[in-house]
């Protein structure tokens, strides 16, 4: 943050400069081999610090290949609230203590 007289912020989007990742005590880590790409974590993340990235092609029930998105955690902004850990239906997200 730029120090100004009177705490004036004249450009929009300054919240992006506050890297809330420094608040974290626990760190969510996705184990992709268990992740079914359901995007429930992405949906629930309040920050939102889980980003939807384009993924590879996967076979679905009828053996057709379709492109599935992949959830990727942005640790610059993830505050470590653990909601994703709680919501993941396959328990694919570990919650590990931050080593600082």
């Amino acid at each position: 943050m730029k120090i100004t007289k009177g705490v004036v912020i004249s450009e929009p989007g300054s919240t992006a400069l506050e890297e809330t990742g420094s608040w974290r005590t626990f760190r969510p880590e996705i184990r992709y081999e268990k992740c079914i790409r359901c995007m429930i974590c992405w949906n629930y993340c309040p920050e939102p610090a889980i980003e939807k990235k384009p993924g590879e092609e996967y076979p679905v029930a009828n053996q057709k290949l379709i492109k599935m998105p992949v959830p990727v955690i942005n640790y610059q902004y993830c505050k470590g609230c653990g909601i994703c850990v709680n919501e993941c239906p396959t328990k694919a997200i570990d919650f590990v203590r931050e080593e600082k």
Partner: protein
Amino acid sequence: MPMMMLKGNESTAYAAKLARVKVVPAYPITPSTVFPEKVSELIANGEMDAEFLPVESEHSALSAAIGAAATGVRTMTATASQGLAFMNEILYIASGMRLPIVMAIGNRALAAPVNIWADQQDTMMVRDSGWIHFYAETNQEALDLTIIAFKVSENENVLLPALMGMDAFVLTHTMEPVNVPEQKDVDAFLGEKEINYPVLDPSKPATFGAFVFPEHYMEFRYSQYIAMEHAKKVIDDAFEQFNKIFGRGYSKVSGFQVEDADILFITMGSMTGTARETVRKLREEGEKVGLVKITVFRPFPKDEIIEITKNAKVIAVVDRNISPGFAGAIFTEVAASFTNVKNRPKIIDFILGLGGRDIRVENYEEIYKRSKKAMRGKFEEVQWIDVDEESVKEVEGSL
């Protein structure tokens, strides 16, 4: 320059007019009510071109002042006592937002018990709010210091709000001859109000007084501290320039008969006149006594106090306020100023004149007598003058 018979509150109203203040949000409270009355009268008469906002509370008055000052216009308000207490939250916002608002205060006691008379407790209560503090001895000073307050407050190295205190009734409601400056001279002194800080502008939206994390809050507080340090020199310069144009000299502290004085009174506000009279009287009797008047309380003129009192053996601080549990506020500041000074004088705090009790020559004579005794021996650090100790001890017990 016309001489006018003005009350203190009218002096500050004329100062607002002469400073070409554009917005005056105010809520009436004794003893400051005459200020908004006079300002609205000046506006209604067409003598003053400004917007008067009759708001619903002091909290709103200063909030509106912040809004007005944030658009870049010269803004002034006035209050006292409970009104200032109600403004407290907004005082810190005004200084944190670095808005050059000027406020006239009719220094009045705080309740309970309810009391509307002279007492400096109210502005001492907001000592740490980041506002510059001026104190007037006379109605002339009230007018001059208000104009000077704008000059200092608006300086780009300062940009802090300023308050100008004058004792309730003794100044606010008492008529004195006041030399009201010519408009052109005040214009020359203050100049057009510069826009030297970011202002509210619909075409360029911005956040003012934003939310700040622990990573940055301290830096903003530090910059307020630096701005207040800058104010020290800016005030000196403004006093000098004012003297050049108007021929009335001011300084943060000013001495009277200090050179060879063993005992020095330190006073602030209207009580100074009586102290000066006492010094004259005691000098005639051959006593080595002098007087130091504080005109600027924030930034505190620490170096000036140490310098001007360097020959004194006893400093008798006169406090028209009390911090229960320690001492009066001016004593605290004066005593702290000497913390790292080797040969320091004895410093005694005298509490008197609370809630409008008159401060008389006899009181100063008593202070002098006690200080002289202290010069040679032990003394109590905090002493109450002109108080019915016996009645209080009957209720509270003795110490």
